[in-house]
C-alpha cells in the first residue's frame, strides 16, 4: 500500500477504538447501490523506479536542443540555487499561510515578492500571484470594471497586438459577466495606432496594451496612456517582467502611468515545462488595492512589537466574502512566486538588465543573420524587444517542422493566429544563445528553405 503506513495490528487496534468490525463498515452510510465497482483504467501499481523509467522514456521523446520560440514562454537560464531552495520541503509542502505564526517563511517571501514586483512595474501594490499571465489579464479586466468609478461602461478595448491566447482566455472568463471586448486593430506596422483611439464614440472602461506586444514590437505606450487618462479609461499593461529591466515600467507610462500591470512570471526562474505552473502577477495603484483579487501579504507586528507578516485585506477574498469576493481565486501559484523571488534576488538590477540586454542582442543578431538568407525578411520594421517576426518565402509551419526534426524549435508559425501571416515565424533570442547556436539556426533554416518549394 504505497504511502500508507498502517500495519495490520494497528488497523485492528484502530477499528477496536472505533468499535467497527472492518474498514468497510466505515462506509456504511453510503447507499450500497452507489458503491464503486472496479477501477478499469487505472493500471497496476508501479514502484517509484518503474514509474520514473516510464516517465523518463516519455520525457526523452520530447527533447529538442535549441529553442528559439518565445510567444509568452521563454527559455532562460535558471540559476541552480533557485530550485534547490524552492524545493525544500518547508516551501514545497506547506499550505496557504492561514496560521501566520507557523508560516513566516512563505509570508515574508511573498512580501518580498510584492516589493520586487512593484519595483519592477513602478506601481504601488502587488498581489501574491494569480494563475498565469492570461488568466491574470482576465482578472485585471474584471478588476478594472469594478475599479473605474468614473466610467461605468462594460466595454473593454483590447489591442489586437495582445497575445492571441491571452485574448482567448479573457474572452472565456469575462464573457459571463456581460463584459464586451472590443478590439483596437493593429496597423500594417504591427502595432496599434494611438490616433485610432479617437474614433471610439463612447470611451471604454479600460484599454489593454501589451508591451512589447505579441510580435515583440514596442507600442506607443505614452500616447496610449495619456489618451486613456484623458477619457477616464483605465490602462491595463501586459508586460514581460524581464523586459522591465530595460523598458519603461507601466507605472511611468505617459503622464500618470498605467493603472494596472499584469503578466506572466515564467521568465523569472520558472522552467518552460509545457507552460505551467508559472505565475500571473497583477500590480496596481494603491487606490485600487481593495479591488485586487487574490492573496495580499502585509507587514505588521506581533504582541512583542516584533516585525511579522500576515495575510491582509482578506475581506476581498472568497473565504470571507463568498459571493461578494473580488474573485473566486483561492489556491494561487505560491511556490512559483518563491522561485521568482529567489531569481530576482540572485539577478538583482544589474543581472536582470544583463539578461534583458542579451535577449535583445541575440534576437537582433538572429534576425539580421536570418535576413541574409534569400527571400527572408523582417516582417515589421519599428523598434522591438526580444522577439521578432521573420517573413519566409513560403508557408512557415512546414519549415518549423523541418527544423524541429533537426532539434531546433524554430519559432512560432503565425498562421494559426493571423492567417495573413502564415509565412511568418515569430522568433526569440535569449541569453542562452551563443554565436554558434545562431549560426546553426540560420544554416538549418537555409537548408530547410532551399528544400522547400517556394510558393510565388
Amino acid at each position, binding site marked *: 500500500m504505497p504511502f500508507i503506513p498502517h500495519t495490520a495490528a494497528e488497523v485492528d487496534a484502530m477499528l477496536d477504538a472505533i468499535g467497527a468490525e472492518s474498514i468497510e463498515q466505515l462506509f456504511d452510510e453510503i447507499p450500497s447501490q452507489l458503491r464503486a465497482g472496479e477501477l478499469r483504467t487505472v493500471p497496476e501499481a508501479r514502484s517509484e523506479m518503474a*514509474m520514473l523509467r516510464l516517465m523518463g522514456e516519455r520525457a526523452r521523446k520530447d527533447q529538442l536542443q535549441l529553442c528559439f520560440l518565445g510567444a509568452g514562454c521563454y527559455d532562460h537560464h535558471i540559476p541552480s540555487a533557485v530550485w534547490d531552495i524552492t524545493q525544500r520541503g518547508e516551501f514545497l509542502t506547506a499550505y496557504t499561510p492561514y496560521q501566520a505564526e507557523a508560516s513566516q517563511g512563505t509570508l515574508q517571501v511573498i512580501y518580498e515578492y510584492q516589493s520586487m514586483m512593484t519595483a519592477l512595474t513602478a506601481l504601488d501594490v502587488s498581489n501574491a500571484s494569480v494563475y498565469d499571465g492570461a488568466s491574470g489579464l482576465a482578472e485585471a479586466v*474584471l478588476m478594472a470594471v469594478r475599479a473605474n468609478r468614473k466610467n461605468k461602461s462594460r466595454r473593454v478595448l483590447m489591442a489586437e497586438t495582445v497575445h492571441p491566447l491571452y485574448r482567448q482566455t479573457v474572452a472565456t472568463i469575462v464573457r459571463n459577466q456581460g463584459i464586451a471586448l472590443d478590439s483596437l486593430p493593429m496597423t500594417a506596422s504591427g502595432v496599434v495606432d494611438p490616433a485610432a483611439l479617437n474614433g471610439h464614440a463612447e470611451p471604454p472602461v479600460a484599454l489593454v496594451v501589451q508591451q512589447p506586444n505579441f510580435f515583440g514590437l514596442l507600442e506607443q505606450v505614452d500616447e496610449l496612456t495619456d489618451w486613456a487618462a484623458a477619457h477616464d479609461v483605465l490602462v491595463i499593461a501586459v508586460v514581460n517582467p524581464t523586459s522591465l529591466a530595460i523598458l519603461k515600467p507601466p507605472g511611468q507610462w505617459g503622464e500618470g502611468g498605467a493603472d494596472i500591470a499584469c503578466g506572466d512570471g515564467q521568465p523569472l526562474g520558472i522552467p518552460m515545462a*509545457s507552460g505551467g505552473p508559472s505565475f500571473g502577477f497583477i500590480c496596481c495603484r494603491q487606490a485600487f488595492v481593495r479591488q485586487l483579487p487574490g492573496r495580499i501579504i502585509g507587514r505588521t507586528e506581533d504582541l512583542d512589537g516584533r516585525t511579522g507578516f500576515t495575510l491582509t485585506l482578506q475581506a476581498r477574498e472568497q473565504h470571507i466574502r463568498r459571493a461578494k469576493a473580488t474573485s473566486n481565486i483561492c489556491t494561487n501559484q505560491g511556490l512559483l512566486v518563491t522561485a521568482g523571488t529567489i531569481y530576482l534576488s540572485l539577478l538583482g538590477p544589474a543581472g536582470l538588465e544583463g539578461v534583458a540586454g542579451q535577449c535583445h542582442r541575440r534576437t537582433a543578431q538572429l534576425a539580421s543573420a536570418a535576413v541574409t538568407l534569400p527571400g527572408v525578411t523582417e516582417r515589421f520594421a519599428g523598434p522591438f524587444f526580444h522577439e521578432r517576426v521573420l517573413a519566409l518565402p513560403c508557408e512557415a509551419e512546414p519549415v518549423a517542422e523541418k527544423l524541429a526534426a533537426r532539434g531546433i524549435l524554430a519559432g512560432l508559425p503565425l498562421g494559426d493566429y493571423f492567417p495573413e501571416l502564415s509565412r511568418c515565424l515569430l522568433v526569440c533570442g535569449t541569453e542562452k544563445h551563443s554565436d554558434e547556436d545562431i549560426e546553426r539556426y540560420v544554416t538549418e533554416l537555409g537548408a530547410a528553405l532551399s528544400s522547400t518549394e517556394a510558393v510565388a
Partner: protein
Amino acid sequence: MNRDTRTIFELSRPGRMATAQVPKVPKAPKAPAAVEMADIPVNLRRPSRPGLPEVSELQVVRHYTNLSRKNFSIENQFYPLGSCTMKYNPRGTHHAAAQPGFPGRHPLAPAAHSQGFLECLFDLQEILKDVTGMTGVSLTPMAGAQGEFAGVAMIRAYHEARGDAARSEILIPNAAHGTNPATAVMCGYGVREVPLTPDGDVDLDALKASVGPQTAGLMMTNPSTCGVFDRRIEGIAATVHDAGGLLYYDGANLNAILGKVKPGDMGFDVLHMNLHKTFATPHGGGGPGSGPVGVNDKLAPYLPVPMVGRDDAGGFRWLTQQDVPGSIGRLSAFMGNAGILLRAFAYALMLGREGMHRVGEFATLNANYMAARLAEHGFALAYPQRRASHEFVITFAEQAKTLGVSAMDIAKRLLDYGFHSPTTYFPLLVPECFLIEPTETETKEELDAFIEALVAILREAESDPELVLSAPQSLPVKRLDDVKAARELDLAYRPPGE
C-alpha cells in the same frame, strides 16, 4: 530559533551582485553594433534601474534557506488542515516531472515533438474518468476554483445551448467552501443558500422548496465540509434534475471516497478534482494546484480546451476549439499547470488500482479513529451520530464558554506542540470549530500524539489559561496584529527615507 526579520532588501548594498548569474556579454559579439540598446527609443526605455536587492549568491541562499525554516510543512510535521488533504507528496513525482525533456518542453512545441507529454496527459484523462465515473475530462483548470469556474460556465453553456436562458441561480449548501458562491457570481449567477439538517445532510425539504425554473444547478461536495456523507444524495440529485438543473460536485473531498464511490454514480453531471489534494501534489505555500474537470455526456460538448486526443496514426494530438466547437474556451495561455498534471499522473501510477482503493479507506479509518478517541476524551464532535468521512468537525463552544479559550487559542497552542493546527472556524455553521483531516499517510502514533497534545492543552486551559491565550510562544513570532496590518497597509518594502 531564528528571529531575524530583515528582508532581503535590508541585506542589499549598492553595487553588490551575484556575479556568476550575470550573463557575460561576449567581447566581440557577432551582433551588429546597431542592435545595442540604442535601437530602443529613449522614451520607451527605463530611466533608472528598478529597486531590486543587490546581494551576493551566498546571501540569497542563506536568506531563503533560513526563511524556509520559519514554515510548518508536511515534511516537518503533522498538518491536519481540514478540506486541504495535506498528505505526503511523494518525492518521486517531482523527479518524474523533472525527467530530461519535460522541464525544457515549450508549450507551443509541435505535436510531433510532444508525444511523451501528450501521452501522459491522455492517460491521466482516462484515469480521472475512471475514478470519477465521468465520460469526459479536461485537465486545463489551474486550481479547484478555476475548475469550478469551468464547471459552472459549462452548466451555463448547456442551458444556453438549449435556449433555457432564464436559469439565473445556483443553489449552494450553507456549509460550502467560499469558492462555490464566488464562482457562481463570476459566471453571472445569483446564489441561493440551502440549509443543512442538524445531522449535517442537505435539508431535502428546503431544497425542494428552493428549486425551480430559475435553478441552473446545485454545487455541493459529498462528503460535505462537515465531514459526513450525505445519505440522501440520490434524492438531492433527483430533485435538482427534475427541476431542470444540473449537479456540480466540488471534488475537494474526493480523497474520502477515492475508489469507493464515484461522483458520476451519485448523479453529478460535472465536477472538478483538486489534484493538489487527492492526487498528492504539493501546495507550495499557496499553490500551484490543478483542478481538472470531469463531465458526463450532457456537458462534454462544452469542456474547456485544450484537451488531448488520439490522432489517426495512433499518436496523440491537441484538441482545440476546432475539435470542440461548443467549448467554453481557454482558461490560460497554455495547458494549465502541466507540471502538476505530470506529478498527479506519476502518483496515480505508483498507487495503481489497488492503492487507489486504499486511499479512501485509510483516510476514513484515520479520521474515524481520531474522532472516536477524541470523543472518548470528552471532546465534542459536531456530528456525533455520524460516521466521519476523511475529516470531521469538533467544536470548542463549551470550552469557549467555560474556560474562555477559543478554538483560535487552542489552534495557536497546538503550534507550540509542533503540530499544524486543523482548519479553524470552518464550516461556518459550527461555532468554535476545528475541521480535522488526518489523511491516510499519517501513522497511528502521530494521530495519538496529536490527540495527547489536545488533551494536554485543555488541561493547560484549566490550570494556566494564560499559556493558551498567549500562544504561540516558541515560534519566530507571537500572535500578529492583523488589525494594524489592515489599517496601516505595508504591502511592499520601501527603502528608509523613501
